[in-house]
């Protein structure tokens, strides 16, 4: 085994780390020193400024300024020199592949939240008060620990295909052959291949939905449940009249969180198909344009479009925020 891990080759990294630690401690020291000089009785505004300065500065440099620059770049040519107006946006909606990319993104945004919520809900209701509840929830939650890249690798193997006659090595095709079926190229045939990629995401996220919804079910006041039972509500009535209305907010949280996450989806598509075979999505297309083809303007336009799609979620969040207050 070539564990070529000689420390001297890695030493620049530790120098970098040391520089980083020193810089970090310097900032911490500066903040604390400034705070030490100003007794609490003085103006709160000064304190707030000192306390917030690092976070606000970093957020501005790291996100807000780049976001504004991306918007400007989306009106520029590929190399970022000439102003081209809306040409990049026009390109985005007229290229033939665009329809596929948008269709796929839509499929992810709609199907993943629905499937995840449905599975999570059924599972949470079934395991509620069962003997194996905590074990069952842990099992379904475990895939959350795996990175999307790792999940992509695992499922690429599950879907692996060898030509007919050869020995199938993919788990799914082995099962298919075993039952006497013909092996399929799961990741090649559009549009079904996008569905098979979606299964991977459902596999990862079902645990999240289960845990959130199960907690919501647990917090339904027991007197409501008791009253419904006394009135002779059957299991179906119980579910539709009591459980479902009571956990509506939690269901909305899961739906919103999931669809928001799927808009940015990149890792699974990148690892499993690279966006080939008509499986590409917005973020993958943005990566290709900006970082593979050098079309900065087009990449920026795609990023801006992504953001526009997210804005309803932002507005929704801000409004519920206000409602809570």
């Amino acid at each position, binding site marked *: 085994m070539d564990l070529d891990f000689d420390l001297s080759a*890695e030493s620049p990294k530790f120098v970098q780390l040391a520089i980083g630690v020193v810089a970090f401690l310097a900032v911490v020291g500066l903040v604390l020193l400034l705070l*030490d000089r100003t007794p609490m009785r003085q103006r709160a505004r000064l304190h707030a400024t000192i306390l917030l300065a690092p976070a606000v500065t970093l957020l501005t440099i790291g*996100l807000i300024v780049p976001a504004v*620059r991306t918007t400007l770049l989306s009106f520029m040519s590929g190399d970022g020199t000439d102003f081209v107006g809306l040409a990049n946006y026009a390109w985005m909606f007229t290229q033939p592949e665009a329809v596929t990319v948008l269709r796929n993104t839509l499929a992810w945004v709609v199907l993943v939240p629905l499937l995840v919520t449905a599975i999570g809900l059924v599972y949470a209701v*079934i*395991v509620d008060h069962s003997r194996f509840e905590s074990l069952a929830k842990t099992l379904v939650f475990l*895939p959350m620990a*795996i990175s999307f890249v790792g999940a992509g*690798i695992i499922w690429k193997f599950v879907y692996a295909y060898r030509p007919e006659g050869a020995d199938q090595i993919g788990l799914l095709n082995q099962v298919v052959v075993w039952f006497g079926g013909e092996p399929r190229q799961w990741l090649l045939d559009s549009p079904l291949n996008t569905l098979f990629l979606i299964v991977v995401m459902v596999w990862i996220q079902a645990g999240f939905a289960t845990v959130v919804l199960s907690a919501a079910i647990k917090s339904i006041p027991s007197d409501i449940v008791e009253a419904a039972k006394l009135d002779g509500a059957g299991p179906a009535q119980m579910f539709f009249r009591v459980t479902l209305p009571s956990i509506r907010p939690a269901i909305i949280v899961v739906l919103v969180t999931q669809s928001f996450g799927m808009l940015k989806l990149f*890792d699974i598509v990148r690892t499993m198909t690279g966006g080939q075979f008509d499986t590409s999505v917005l973020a993958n297309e943005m990566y290709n344009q900006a970082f593979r083809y050098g079309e900065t303007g087009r990449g920026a336009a795609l990023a801006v479009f992504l953001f526009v799609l997210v804005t309803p979620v932002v507005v929704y969040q801000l409004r519920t925020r206000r409602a809570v207050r």
Partner: protein
Amino acid sequence: MRRRLSYLTLLAVAFFSIFPLYYSVVVASRHNSALAEVPPPLLPGGNFFANVARVFDTVPFAMALLNSFLVAGSIAVAVMFFSTLAGFAFAKLSFRGKNILLLITVATMMVPAQLGIIPLYMLMVKIEWTGSMYALVVPALVNAFGVFFMTQYLSRALPTELLEAGRVDGATTWRLFWHVVLPTARPAAAVLGMLTFMSAWNDYFWPLVVLTPENPTVQVALSTLASGYVNDYVLGLAGTAVGTLPLILVFILLGKQIIGGIMQGAVKG
């Protein structure tokens, strides 16, 4: 009957969740030739360490693990500290412009990272940070989610009377922060640190953009492993197992706290 049905569902879902994981460990511990066996092998074999050794030969995996630990660790520590500072200000100080600033923070939380990545990359090229870990750590030193998370927690958990009492005694803000705020914030900060570490460990888009395959993080190294022309599944799965092990350990040890944190932060996405 109903009972049997529920056990069946339970089994089916648990099988769907666990079996791909289990089977990939089985494959990672066997020789390539075992893949085509009929029926497929169902128990782990003895080849795991040999396969892992091949992973280390194919990509700079030791370096990737070191990089990921350093990057995710630094980010987690910085996010915990800066978020606690800002969260304290938002939760317990009243100053002009606070509400609007907090609103902007919440809005920022929803902005997809992709929106800033192109200019950020141009900046990294200009200051020659591409390929270096600085490019991963510095832009991630603070995030809106962390600030929001700590604000939520501190406004509930930090007793205003305690701060008032300290104020009356003439304690400086430094002393209050060190002796009152930090101890109160510790449990939430720990959860935040864990979540941050996990998401930094699993991050892929930005590292893929800004790093080179010669000096990767774990996720970038894994994607290199999996993108070979001749797809060596055993290799990819063995790498995935090693690259996921740290997080699985964290999950087993601290699962409850992680779930709690994810629930509170369900808005993050």
